[in-house]
């Protein structure tokens, strides 16, 4: 489905500060879209508006043709830090996603928890508290929780920003696989060009504040849907990466 998430003349100011310039944009269902742009340009703000956590100053955002007014579990957030609740075990953190769901009974919830524990390789840590597991594990818990909640759209704000390079690679691969397998729509915010090219079906490049779209790159057309790690060493990947870097330099005026 095209235009599953739709920005319609969306703009946002905080008081006198214009953060997002009037933007119109449609995102496909079951695709992974990366919002790329310099720090402080307004990416988080854009994403929060999709989540219903911030209200556009003008224009609107539609999800499946329906206007977004408040947060609900169809759109789940994954943050860089404070992503999992420290007072809950891994299992309970995942269960928290379904805590307020009345449509599932206990058995169904337990089954879903089991499913996501396995899917993310967390089964051995089910009873552990977040501070006893690695940062990568914690981000897996956060993603699992949003999926357990039944979110259709994952809003991920630099979720791997604080991880070491190796863990980060692994999680990128996993995210990509899971996004395809679970058929989710992902909006992924980052300012890391490599990460953007590796993950994205499509990259939307934003200008400095106030954010406006300066480039729209169809990565899927170049790299296809499958993203094994080795793809990073291919000529195509390099070219694409360089192209994005150039765009950033020329279009946003930022030295990367």
């Amino acid at each position, binding site marked *: 489905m095209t235009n599953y998430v739709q920005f319609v003349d969306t703009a946002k100011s905080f008081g006198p500060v214009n953060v997002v310039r009037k933007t119109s944009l449609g995102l496909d269902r079951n695709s992974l879209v990366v919002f790329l742009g310099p720090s402080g340009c307004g990416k988080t703000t854009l994403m929060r508006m999709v989540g219903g956590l911030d209200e556009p100053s003008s224009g609107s955002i539609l999800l499946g043709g329906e206007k977004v007014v408040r947060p609900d579990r169809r759109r789940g957030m994954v943050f860089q830090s404070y992503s999992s609740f420290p007072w809950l075990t891994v299992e309970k953190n995942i269960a928290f996603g379904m805590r307020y769901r009345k449509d599932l009974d206990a058995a169904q919830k337990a089954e879903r928890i089991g499913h996501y524990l396995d899917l993310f390789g967390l089964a051995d840590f089910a009873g552990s508290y977040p501070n006893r597991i690695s940062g990568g594990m914690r981000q897996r818990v956060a993603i699992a*929780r949003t999926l357990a909640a039944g979110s259709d759209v994952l809003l991920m704000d630099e979720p791997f920003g604080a991880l070491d390079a190796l863990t980060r690679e692994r999680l990128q691969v996993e995210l990509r696989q899971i996004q395809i397998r679970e058929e989710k729509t992902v909006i992924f915010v980052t300012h890391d060009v490599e990460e953007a090219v590796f993950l994205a079906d499509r990259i939307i490049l934003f200008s400095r504040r106030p954010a406006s779209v300066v480039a729209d790159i169809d990565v899927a057309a170049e790299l296809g849907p499958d993203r094994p790690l080795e793809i990073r060493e291919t000529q195509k990947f390099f070219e694409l990466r360089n192209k994005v870097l150039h765009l950033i330099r020329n279009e946003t005026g930022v030295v990367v």
Partner: protein
Amino acid sequence: MVEFAVSVAAAVLVVALWELAARAGIIAPQFLPSPSRVVVALWTMLTEQNLIWHVAVSTARVWIAFLLAAIMAIPIGIMMSSYRIVGAALEPIIDFIRYLPVPALVPLSIIWFGVGEETKIFLLWLGTFFQLVLLVADDMRRVPQEFVEVARTVGANSRQVMTDVALRWMGPTLLDNLRITLGWCWTYLIIAEIVAADSGIGYVIWTARRFVKTPEVMAGVVVIGLIGLVTDQLLRLLHRRLFRYL
């Protein structure tokens, strides 16, 4: 274990130095009685002056005042952080009252509450509530926005955000702050218990002071110290039990 041994050794050393200083007569015994005299005084107070009863009365007063303060401060502190209007209305007033010297308010509290238990509880409450409410408000402000937003996106309403996220996140610091303010509450005991006094360890200390029974004064002070030490350790234990995830 090593730490425990060091703690005990340090305490023993302090007491030994104290005994030595007192025996050597460096300071007149009217001002600093030896620890052994204090222990003897403590024993007489226990056996002949109903010390246990006075301790029980004081403990009850402190806990009633403290719990009243906590019951009021927690919701009010949370409201102050959650609703800007409430914060704007209360914060300056509380900040002002917080600095008022409690002893200066004694006659006023007698006019309001009489010379019965209410005044004593009120004075103890006064020393605790205003400190605690600001601490709670600060804790509430520190709840990471991310947690609140995650909860809202999985369908929590405001009340659920409060109970399932904010309070859970605040739990450890809240208990710490309660532990600290409970200590403050004890320090107001003398002020509260010399008002129309007839019971409590503050009263015992004050009477002993009136008759220059310094060993008894010291013994009373030591008892408060011991109660503080024990309470503190118990609350720390509770902290470890409740917040294993830390």
